[in-house]
């Protein structure tokens, strides 16, 4: 990523539109997107969809992954994945590969959205590497640089119950300290015993860009140091470009600890709090003012501010993306520190909308390059 304002995917797309029980629709969507994205051999997918039970679930996932890869490449992104076509969520799947956890039941996240939450009951250990097969598939088919996302240690711990570390530490006269110490030990053991060996396997398989997804990183203001230490422990001694994605939070809570983070790029959300007006004045770009904290604190890593809002069907004009990037460069005081990406994954958007948004991302970055 040596050019100015390189573009990078971040997070998942919605499932490929031909993943549907409606056979007619599946065939129509596979054809339309196959032609549009120039997916190799798309006609054989149509043929298979036309024939009852001729595709195994694994084969269908392979096709979805291939379409996801071509989707992002066709939109012109420099660093891609497959839109996480094989993944349904980011917690339960990795936990299934870890010894020391037991699922306790479903818990609410909001309204009628729930997830199956596990408790740690023993020291966590990687049972077998995960995401390896999907990565190898993407690597084999991708024509651009590949970045694999993986849920980070802090988020896995924060989204789990603790029935082991608290019990072991348990000084009841100071429960706050006991809980913090327990969390610290839990997160670090996950980083060392699960995340690091898993990343090691991915690197051995050829991964060069690795993104740790940490949506919980800034949930607890007094645990920013634990998050940063766990990230650094997760990648200790490993050779790759490491990115961390943290979205929709109060980034100020992460400082000053974030300065110790050994990531090359920190990906954050900005556009959801921004206006749709063009311009690089402070009043036009309220969503990006948060970048001033990064500069004031002297952050050395690159920042990937989200220049595309993933929670709306509004298609950002390339000129708006351009101005958001130029403003980011101005606030950070260094053009080379800015990477262009979305606020988060586009999985809540239809492919049609997501594709237009990704086109705007790459076109806006090109405009910004031209302006510079």
């Amino acid at each position, binding site marked *: 990523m040596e050019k100015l304002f390189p573009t990078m995917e971040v997070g998942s797309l919605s499932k490929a539109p031909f993943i549907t029980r409606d056979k007619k629709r599946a065939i129509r969507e596979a054809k339309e997107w196959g032609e549009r994205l120039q997916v190799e051999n798309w006609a054989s997918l149509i043929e298979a969809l036309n024939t009852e039970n001729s595709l195994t679930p694994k084969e269908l996932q392979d096709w979805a992954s291939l379409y996801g890869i071509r989707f992002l490449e066709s939109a012109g992104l420099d660093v891609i994945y497959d839109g996480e076509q094989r993944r349904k969520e980011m917690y339960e799947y990795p936990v299934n590969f870890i010894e020391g956890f037991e699922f306790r039941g479903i818990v609410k996240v*909001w309204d009628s959205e729930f997830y199956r*939450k596990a408790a740690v009951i023993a020291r966590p250990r990687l049972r077998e590497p995960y995401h390896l097969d999907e990565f190898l598939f993407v690597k084999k088919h991708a024509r651009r640089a590949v970045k694999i996302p993986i849920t980070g240690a802090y988020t896995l711990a924060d989204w789990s*119950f603790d029935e082991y570390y608290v019990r072991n530490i348990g000084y009841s006269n100071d*429960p*706050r300290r006991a809980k913090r110490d327990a969390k610290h030990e839990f997160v670090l053991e996950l980083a060392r015993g699960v995340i690091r060996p898993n990343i090691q396997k991915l690197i051995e398989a050829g991964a060069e860009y690795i993104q740790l997804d940490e949506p919980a990183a800034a949930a607890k203001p007094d645990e920013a140091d634990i998050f940063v230490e766990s990230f650094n422990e997760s990648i200790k001694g490993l050779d790759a470009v490491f990115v961390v994605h943290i979205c929709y939070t109060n980034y100020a809570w992460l400082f000053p600890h974030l300065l110790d983070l050994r990531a090359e790029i920190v990906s954050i959300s900005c556009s959801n709090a921004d206006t749709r007006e063009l311009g690089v004045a402070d009043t036009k770009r309220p969503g990006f003012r948060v970048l001033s904290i990064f500069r004031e604190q002297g952050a050395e890593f690159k920042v990937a501010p989200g220049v595309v809002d993933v929670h709306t069907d509004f298609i950002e004009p390339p000129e708006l993306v351009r101005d958001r990037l130029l403003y980011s460069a101005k606030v950070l005081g260094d053009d080379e520190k800015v990477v262009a990406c979305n606020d988060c994954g586009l999985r809540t958007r239809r492919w049609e909308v997501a594709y237009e948004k990704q086109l705007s991302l790459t076109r806006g970055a090109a405009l910004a390059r031209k302006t510079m």
Partner: protein
Amino acid sequence: MEVRAYLTGQFAKPEQLIKAYRDRAKGKISEQTLDEVLRKHVREVVGVQYASGLTYVSDGMLNWHDLFRPIVEGVGGLEVNGLARWFDNNFFYKKPIAVGELQFRRSITEGYVFNEYVKHGELKVILPDPFTIASMSENQYYKRFEDMLFSYAEILAEHVVNVEELGVAQIQLSAPYMAFTRLSGDEVEMASEAVREIRKRTRAELLLHTFYGPASNVIPYALDFPVDVVGVDMTLSKPREVTDYSITKPLCLGVLDGRNSMLEDVRALVKLCKRIADDAGLRLLHVAPNCELELLPYEIALRKTRLLGELNKALGEVE
């Protein structure tokens, strides 16, 4: 020792009810079928509280999507926006936005309180404390935060009047904001005056329950609030953060952890409660989960409720 035990927030949602809500959203089931599933679980949640011997009984608030939503739905001048994090939890609420003068339109007793399953005089109803809901709202209308705060207080006071007619024994004002954040002197004064607006309208026992933060953020001033009982989060507090103060009114000790699935040792809790009661000179003790049990799976929430019953019984036997 005289003890009172009760729940302090929304109960966990059972899987069958979650599925019913989703099916209703997709039009797969009728409103009546959803209501039947809801009521079946309300009876179950009420039943486990009775079986556990709790002093006051809540309906579990199983159709409250978050602590604010039923209030927001019954008020003119409020809208809800996107999701916002519920303190430091992996749980999100819909943020209320004041876009006009707040006007009381509909009581929570219309569809959000199931008093028919609870004996008259034993019902417990939970509402947000005015300062908490105001602080966690967005103000696009009022000139000053204070104006929005007292408008909320008026709205909540109307609800209190309505629930009192149902034979309510205890009204809880949930005040997590007060424990999570240390309030300034001016804020404390405003928060207390807002609670006073509610106090004026009810003779039921009024509990100001604080959680998600240490008692030391609360105790120094909350004992002066116009309430009957002050609740503190003992899962995040050292005993000394309570006993170092002169305790002038009954305390509710939130000793069961509503945010962790690990089941507490009742003997250890008895010891902790007794120590605090002895050191603070309390003859009447209230015990409860620190917060809502909604952040737990349903089965574990049921087990924690039974555990609270065991704690209640064990403390009752202490001289």
